[in-house]
């Protein structure tokens, strides 16, 4: 019954998506009114289909193949929900539902848009939605029923049983799918032949919201890797991580570029291209994670057949849009003049650097593939390449971040700009020398990162002081987000350079010290969780003879899968994290423990949170009501 309902909702969602795609092609203008209700219905049906799957997981209905493979009766409810998107099929259903929800949201807020524009935008989204729904129904059915339901499910992969895995996939998927909105708006603009301030205003809100989701999703993924993988690292330049980073870089460029279009009518065709590429990267990421082209620790079960279907989907959607861009954009190039020293110039450089970074990441990710294809022998591209590429591109980027917001639109005067930046430059140089000296031996990359961070923060401060904190929502959001970048850069630099680790064998009540922290092993005892048995160590953290904290690392054995995991215990702090993992017992009664002190790790995610918050503030400032003039003009153009 439930499976029937689920299939029916998915089929209906497909029907509505197809109808939505057909609306703008329909001749009679009064039919255009159908687009909004159709979008809402598609959103409703897709959500219902996802809810059916999540419901089956919560009820542990092992008649569903996915439930039997990825859940069990002993799995806590929150992780059962996470199980709904732990599989290839489930994650694509989540993708489709996210797209349908964004589409419905855009339809709701686009009430006052010119009907043709709205119908075209929704039509593109309907087309993409139809492709996904068709793919789900034909090649990747999430509701497959088992003729003989097993008595017990196989449980969720233990590595995914972490709080971050409940929220990370939906946020990341909302980010990926959300980039379809700027994409659709760009395609509609290319068809209409107009990408001016009105287009930018309508696009910026959705681009920014999707970017916020993507930021939070990536940050949560990194929290998960730090907590679960047990190495204490937070970013590994893994193909799957890169797949989420590329659309993020592109979307970042887009939301900045849109500011120039909205205020000055400049960079219109560039912004269109960025909107197309942003979604292109997001589809590329979706494809890379699921096709088995690149191997990664995070990838889903791979399947070349489905990979091919996803590749065709991506090639058609993005290829058609880029072809349209190549045809129409040259005629739309109409740039308002701006001088070399102006905010527009800074934003052009911003676009070039961010897109360059995305391409550098793409090159690093696909380079092994390309060289193998050309039989040039295998090559390992690792963290050193990515670190160097990012340092090379992001340092000038950060320099511009200091200057750009202070530069005038159109034409800035060098003397006044220099006057405004003088204090900030002095402060950041002196402060970074001081920090580097205080932190002791740190690498030059770290010093560079600290300097960059302080430069952003001090220019931000001087700008805020000069304007006494006044400014539109977009400006306030920009300040918060840029502060987030500064916090992130500081955290990433200090985390890379600082930090100590040590492996010790400890007896009960024995003490070990690391970086001035005292760890006392109080005992190791068996404990039982909902679906695992564990050995748990209790470790007191002492300072000046007083116990200031307690850590309880575990070694778990998940009963159903018989998989052993190491559950590190982490005491998070403002300037340092204590990270302890429990190892094997030695035969003389001692326990192996891995103690790590990580510096400023929390700042990395605090920075991401600030960026997302800034994005949300900026998006909330976008006017949703169409100004009378624009709406009429738009209608006339359409």
């Amino acid at each position, binding site marked *: 019954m439930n499976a029937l309902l689920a299939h029916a909702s998915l089929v209906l969602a497909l029907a509505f998506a197809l109808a939505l795609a057909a609306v703008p092609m329909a001749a009679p203008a009064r039919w255009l009114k159908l687009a909004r209700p159709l979008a809402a219905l598609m959103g409703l049906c897709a959500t219902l289909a996802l809810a059916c799957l999540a419901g089956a997981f919560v009820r542990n209905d092992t008649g569903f193949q996915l439930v039997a493979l990825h859940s069990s009766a002993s799995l806590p409810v929150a992780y059962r929900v996470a199980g709904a998107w732990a599989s290839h099929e489930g994650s694509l259903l989540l993708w489709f539902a996210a797209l349908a929800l964004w589409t419905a949201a855009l339809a709701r807020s686009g009430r006052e848009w010119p009907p043709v524009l709205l119908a075209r935008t929704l039509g593109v989204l309907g087309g993409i939605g139809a492709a996904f729904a068709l793919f789900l129904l034909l090649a990747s059915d999430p509701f497959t029923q088992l003729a003989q339901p097993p008595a017990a499910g196989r449980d969720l992969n233990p590595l995914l049983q972490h709080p971050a895995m409940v929220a990370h996939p939906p946020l990341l998927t909302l980010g990926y799918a959300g980039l379809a909105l700027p994409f659709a708006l760009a395609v509609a603009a290319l068809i209409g032949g107009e990408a001016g301030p009105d287009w930018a205003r309508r696009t910026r809100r959705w681009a920014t919201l999707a970017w916020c989701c993507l930021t939070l999703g990536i940050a949560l993924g990194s929290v998960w890797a730090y907590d679960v993988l047990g190495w204490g690292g937070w970013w590994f330049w893994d193909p799957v991580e890169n797949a989420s980073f590329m659309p993020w870089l592109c979307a970042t460029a887009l939301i900045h570029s849109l500011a120039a279009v909205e205020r000055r009518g400049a960079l219109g065709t560039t912004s269109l291209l960025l909107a197309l590429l942003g979604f*292109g990267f997001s589809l590329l990421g979706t494809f890379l994670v699921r096709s088995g*082209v690149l191997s990664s620790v995070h*990838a889903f079960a791979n399947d070349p057949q489905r*990979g091919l279907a996803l590749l065709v989907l*991506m090639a058609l959607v993005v290829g058609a849009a880029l072809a349209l861009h190549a045809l129409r954009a*040259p005629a739309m190039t109409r740039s308002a003049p701006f001088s070399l020293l102006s905010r527009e110039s800074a934003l052009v450089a911003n676009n070039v650097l961010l897109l360059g970074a995305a391409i550098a990441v793409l090159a690093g990710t696909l380079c092994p593939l390309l060289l193998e*294809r050309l039989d040039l*022998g295998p090559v*390992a591209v690792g963290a050193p390449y990515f670190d160097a590429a990012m340092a090379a591109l992001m340092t000038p980027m950060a320099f511009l971040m200091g200057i750009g917001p202070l530069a005038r639109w159109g034409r800035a005067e060098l003397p006044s700009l220099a006057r405004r930046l003088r204090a900030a430059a002095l402060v950041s140089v002196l402060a970074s020398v001081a920090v580097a000296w205080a932190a002791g031996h740190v690498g030059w990359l770290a010093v560079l990162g600290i300097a960059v961070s302080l430069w952003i923060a001090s220019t931000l401060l001087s700008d805020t002081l000069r304007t006494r904190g006044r400014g539109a929502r977009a400006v306030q959001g920009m300040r918060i987000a840029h502060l987030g970048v500064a916090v992130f850069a500081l955290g990433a630099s200090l985390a890379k350079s600082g930090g100590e680790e040590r492996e010790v064998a400890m007896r009960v009540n024995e003490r070990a010290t690391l970086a001035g922290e005292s760890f006392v092993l109080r005992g190791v005892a068996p404990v039982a969780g909902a679906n695992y048995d564990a050995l748990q160590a209790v470790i007191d953290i002492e300072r000046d003879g007083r116990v200031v904290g307690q850590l309880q690392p575990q070694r778990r054995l998940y009963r159903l899968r018989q998989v052993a995991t190491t559950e590190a215990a982490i005491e998070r702090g403002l300037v340092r994290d204590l990270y302890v993992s429990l190892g094997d017992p*030695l035969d003389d009664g001692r326990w192996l423990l891995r103690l790590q002190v990580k510096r400023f790790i929390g700042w990395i995610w605090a920075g991401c949170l600030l960026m997302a918050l800034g994005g949300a503030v900026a998006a909330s400032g976008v006017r949703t009501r169409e100004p009378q003039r624009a709406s009429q003009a738009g209608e006339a153009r359409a």
Partner: protein
Amino acid sequence: MSRRVRAAHVVPLATFALLCVLLGTSLRRSPQGAAAPEPIVGRSAPAFALARLHEPGALLQGSDLLGQVWILNAWASWCGPCREELPALHALAKAGRAPLYGLAFKDAPQDSRDWLARNSNPYVQTLVDTQGRTGEAFGVQGVPVTFVIDRDGTVQLRHDGALTPQVLRTRIEPLLQALDAPAAQARAWSALARRWMSQGQLDRAVDALRHASAAQPEDAMLLCDLAGVLAARNGNRLEGEPAALVERALRVDPDHVQALSLAGAHALERGDDALAQRHWMRALARLDANAPAAAMLRENLARLRGRTAASAQAAATTAGSPPAR
């Protein structure tokens, strides 16, 4: 509209088309249904049989290396950091705690040989993995990667990136030391024995259990396991060395259930039914009434009381069955 502007706008489309071609062709090359590598630490090292770089005629198999702790270092002549870790590798080889094997990952044999000749060779043997299949089975994506593999073939450690003196000091040396502890040795050897037994290689299982027992002579369970396998090799007869081992086990722990069961079986073998019954009753008293072993013992006792001729054989089979630890 100049031609140049138009051309510039085609660049993204053309690049994207090339990208799709690259991805499409790679898709077909990727192995059918290949799953993402699962973390290898804690699992058995994948089986392999590879040519040796310096003696190309002779293959080296993973199973040849069972029974010792060994280190595998995946490297390649095209990898920069692999040169940086050479001093650490030499230090590791010189310490002599475990033999160091190299795996020339996706590297042409001549390049590997030249590289080793040009720099220096810390390895006892280097295995040729030109296609990278074995490395990939180990989960290697980039090099260098170092693995520590236990006596029973379990991968105990994976280190990504160049080895440094600090990594040696904090990760590798403590692990090698821990693996040499008697308890760890006994655990690995008996795991290896189970593996040999499941393949029907009783001689090798006996050898592994002798090592395990040598590491922990006071472990009654190991003595029983060894007695059981020796008996199985000997047509399920306990007379001789197996019986002596059982006696030793009972000296260590007079209440040991397996030892008592085996001692009972041995008594039966010699026709001493009363002694067999005493041993088994004592074993039964130590067991949970619901345990499967208890049911089996009760069954044996019942048959013994019936004094059927088949009972002796059955008891020997039950008690002498492969050790379950």
